[in-house]
C-alpha cells in the first residue's frame, strides 16, 4: 500500500509543479479462458483489473510525462517485484511505474532523463534491432506497448535537424525482462522442463526445482555495468533510414542446471556377505539459476514507399553473442563428470556458447481507406555448430496481418499470425474491437497456438490457446 501511496503522490506533485498539465487514465478489465479441449479444461487464463493513470505536463521548453499501472490480478499470475512485491502466487493489488521522464527541448538538441520506453526498428512483432527495452515475458500478450515492453532508466541526449534524428542513450541501471516466475503462471512450465531423466547414469528421474528471483544473478549496479545505445534516423521523400548500435545485457537470463544432493547411505559389500553402510551425497533434484551476459548489436532499417505499398527492411548483426546450452547438453556434462569423478558436485558446466548471428526482416504494407494488409518474412542465422544449443542454425518465420476499420472508426476487426519454418507451427490471433462510445470499448480476441509438423516455438504453447475479453474506459 505504501508503494501505491507513493505512486499517487508522484502524480499529484507532477501535476502541481508544471504549468499546463493533462491528467487522464484508462480503466481496463481483462478476462480470459483457455479453450476447453486443452488438458486441464476451460480454466481462466486472465482475470485482471487495471487502472493506467497518465500525466503529461509541460512548461516552456520542459515537459514531464508519467504513466503507470495499478492492477489487481485475481489469478496471481504476474509476479513482477515492481508490480506485486513479494506476493508471489497470491491475488493482490500492485503498481508499476511504466514511464516517468523529464524532457528538455533546446531546439536543435534535446535531453530526456528517467524511465522511458523506447521502440527501435521498422519490423512488427520480430526483434531485430529493437533490443534496448526488455520484454514483459510474464504473459503472452499485451493490449499495448506499455504492457509488453518495460521501461529503462536512461539518459537520452538528442540532436535534431529537419531530416535527421540522433539519439544517444546511457542506461546506468540494467533492467531485466520480466519472467513468468509465479507458481500460478503456466508460462513458467514452458520456460524450463519439469523433470530430467538421468536413468542412464543410474540417478533416475530428477525433479527440477523452481527458478526464483533469488537464483537470478543480476549484474551489480555500477558504472562499468551500464548499457549504451545510439540511433541515427533520416527521412527523405524516397525512403527513411535508421542506423542502430547497442551494447548492454541480454534481457533474459541463461538458465544453469546444478545437481542438488541429499545425504544418503549405501551398503557396500566389504566381504562376502558382509555389508557396511557408507554415507554419500545422493543426487536428489536439479537446482536452476540464471546468469546474464553481455551482448552487442549493430543494425539498420529502411522504409521505402513504392506506389501504394511500403517496403520495410531491417537487419542486425550480433557479434560473438551468447546462446544457451540446451538442458540436455548441460546434464550430459554433469553426467560425464559424475561418471569420471564419482562426484555430483563441482562439475564445470558450460552454460552458453558464443556465435556470430545475423537477423533480418522484409515486410510489405498496403493501406486502403478501410483496410490494412501487412506481411513480413523474418530470418536469423547462427554461425558455427549448434549441436549443443536448443535451436537450429537458421530460423525462419512469416507473419501476416489483415485489419479492417469501419468508415466511422468504431469497429475494428482483424486477424494476424506468425508461422514458423520448417516446423510449420503457428499462432493465429483474430480480434474484434468495438467503441461503444468515444471512451468505452470492448475487444474480443483469441490466441490460437497450432501444431506444425514438429515441435516449434509456438506449438509449445498449444495448451495455452485462449479467448479474451477486454473492456476499457478512458477518462
Amino acid at each position, binding site marked *: 500500500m505504501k508503494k501505491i501511496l507513493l505512486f499517487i503522490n508522484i502524480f499529484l506533485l507532477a501535476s502541481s509543479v508544471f504549468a499546463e498539465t493533462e491528467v487522464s487514465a484508462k480503466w481496463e478489465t481483462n478476462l480470459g479462458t483457455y479453450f476447453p479441449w486443452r488438458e486441464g479444461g476451460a480454466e481462466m487464463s486472465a482475470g485482471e483489473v487495471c487502472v493506467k493513470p497518465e500525466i503529461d505536463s509541460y512548461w516552456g521548453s520542459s515537459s514531464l510525462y508519467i504513466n503507470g499501472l495499478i492492477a489487481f490480478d485475481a489469478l496471481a499470475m504476474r509476479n513482477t517485484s515492481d508490480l506485486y512485491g513479494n506476493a508471489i502466487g497470491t491475488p493482490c493489488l500492485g503498481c508499476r511505474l511504466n514511464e516517468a521522464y523529464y524532457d528538455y527541448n533546446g531546439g536543435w538538441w534535446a535531453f530526456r532523463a528517467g524511465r522511458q520506453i523506447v521502440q527501435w526498428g521498422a519490423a512488427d512483432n520480430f526483434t531485430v534491432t529493437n533490443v534496448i527495452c526488455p520484454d514483459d515475458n510474464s504473459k503472452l500478450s499485451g493490449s499495448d506497448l506499455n504492457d509488453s515492453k518495460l521501461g529503462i532508466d536512461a539518459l537520452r541526449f538528442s540532436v535534431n535537424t529537419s531530416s535527421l534524428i540522433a539519439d544517444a542513450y546511457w542506461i546506468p541501471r540494467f533492467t531485466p525482462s520480466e519472467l513468468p516466475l509465479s507458481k500460478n503462471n503456466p508460462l513458467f512450465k514452458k520456460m524450463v522442463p519439469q523433470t530430467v531423466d538421468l536413468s542412464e547414469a543410474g540417478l533416475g528421474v530428477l525433479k527440477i526445482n523452481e527458478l526464483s528471483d533469488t537464483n537470478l544473478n543480476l549484474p551489480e549496479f555500477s558504472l562499468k555495468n551500464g548499457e549504451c545505445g545510439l540511433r541515427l534516423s533520416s527521412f527523405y521523400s524516397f525512403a527513411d533510414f535508421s542506423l542502430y548500435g547497442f551494447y548492454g545485457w541480454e534481457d533474459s537470463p541463461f538458465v544453469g542446471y546444478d545437481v542438488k544432493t541429499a545425504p544418503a547411505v549405501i551398503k557396500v559389500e566389504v566381504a562376502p556377505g558382509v555389508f557396511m553402510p557408507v554415507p554419500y551425497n545422493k543426487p536428489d533434484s536439479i537446482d536452476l539459476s540464471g546468469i546474464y551476459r553481455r551482448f552487442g548489436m549493430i543494425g539498420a532499417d529502411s522504409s521505402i514507399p513504392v506506389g501504394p505499398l511500403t517496403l520495410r527492411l531491417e537487419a542486425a548483426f550480433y557479434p560473438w553473442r551468447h546462446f544457451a546450452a540446451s538442458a540436455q547438453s548441460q546434464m550430459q556434462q554433469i553426467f560425464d563428470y559424475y561418471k569420471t569423478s564419482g562426484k555430483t558436485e563441482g562439475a564445470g558446466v558450460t552454460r552458453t556458447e558464443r556465435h556470430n548471428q545475423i537477423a533480418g526482416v522484409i515486410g510489405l*504494407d*498496403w493501406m*486502403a481507406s478501410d483496410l490494412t494488409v501487412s506481411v513480413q518474412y523474418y530470418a536469423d542465422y547462427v554461425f558455427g555448430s549448434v549441436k549443443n544449443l536448443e535451436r537450429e542454425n537458421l530460423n525462419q518465420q512469416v507473419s501476416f496481418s489483415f485489419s479492417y476499420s469501419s468508415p466511422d472508426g468504431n469497429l475494428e476487426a482483424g486477424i494476424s499470425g506468425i508461422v514458423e519454418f520448417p516446423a510449420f507451427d503457428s499462432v493465429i490471433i483474430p480480434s474484434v474491437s468495438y467503441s461503444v462510445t468515444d*471512451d468505452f470499448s470492448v475487444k474480443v480476441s483469441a490466441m490460437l497456438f497450432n501444431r506444425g509438423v514438429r515441435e516449434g516455438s509456438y506449438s509449445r504453447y498449444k495448451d495455452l490457446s485462449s479467448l479474451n475479453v477486454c473492456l476499457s474506459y478512458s477518462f
Partner: protein
Amino acid sequence: MKKTFALLGTFLIASALFAQSLTGYDIVKKADEVPSPKTSASVAKLTIHSKKGTDRIREVIMKSKDYGDVTKEVIVFTTPKDVAGTGYLMFDYEDENKDSDNWLYMPAMKKTRRIASSGTEAEGSFMGTDFTYEDMGDRKISKDDYTLLGEETVDGVECYKVDCVSKAHTEKDPRRVVFIGKEDFILRKCEFYDRQNQLHRVLTCTDFATIDGFTTAQVLKMENVQSGTYSLIETKDIVYNGAKVDDSFFTVVALERGNIR
C-alpha cells in the same frame, strides 16, 4: 491523405474578383486561384453524428505551411484520450506526378510508420467523418469537366451553380454541383452525386469570418443523405501567417517528441 483540412480554407478564401460571361471552368478556376495564407494553425472539433442520433467528438490540432513546391501539414489528435497524440505528417507536392510523403505516429506503439500514397485513400473517410480526404483539399481543376447550370441563392448569397463531372468515372462521387459566391468566389455549398447519379452527400459552409484578410468558413457540415448521418467540422483559434507555425513542426521528430501543442 494527400489533402488536408487546412487547405479547405484556401479553397474557401475570397478575393474581390468580378465575373462577366464566365464559363463553368472560369468560375471554378477563379475560386481555385484565390490567394491563400502561407501558414495556418488551428484547432478543429469534429462531430460525427450517427443515424441513431449519437454524437462522437474528435479534436485535432492542425498546422500547415506552403513552401511553394510543397505544402507541409501536420495533424495531431487531442481527443478522444484513446488516440490522443496520434499524428499525421504530410508533404504534398505541387508536381502532380510526385506522390505525397506521409508518416503516421502512434503513441501506443512509440513508433512512426511511413505510409505510402494510395490512389484509393483519397476517397477514404477523413478521421471517421462523412468527409473524405479529397474533400479536404484543393482538388485539381484538370480532373473535371465544367458546365455552368445557372445561378441560385444559398443562405442569402447569390451564387453560381456549376456542374463538375469527373473525367475519371471510377470515383465514388464522380459528379458534383458546386455553389460559388458571385462576388467573392467562395464555395458556399456542394452536392455530391454517386455513380448512379443519386444525391449522396451535401456540404454546407457557414459561420464565415475574415481572419488576417482571408475569409474562412468556420463551420462545415457534410450530410450523407443516403445513410442519414452527418459530420460537423468546427474550427477555432485560427491563425494565418503567424509565428505559431515553426518549420520544426513539420518533422518526424516533432511527431515523436510530442512538440506540436
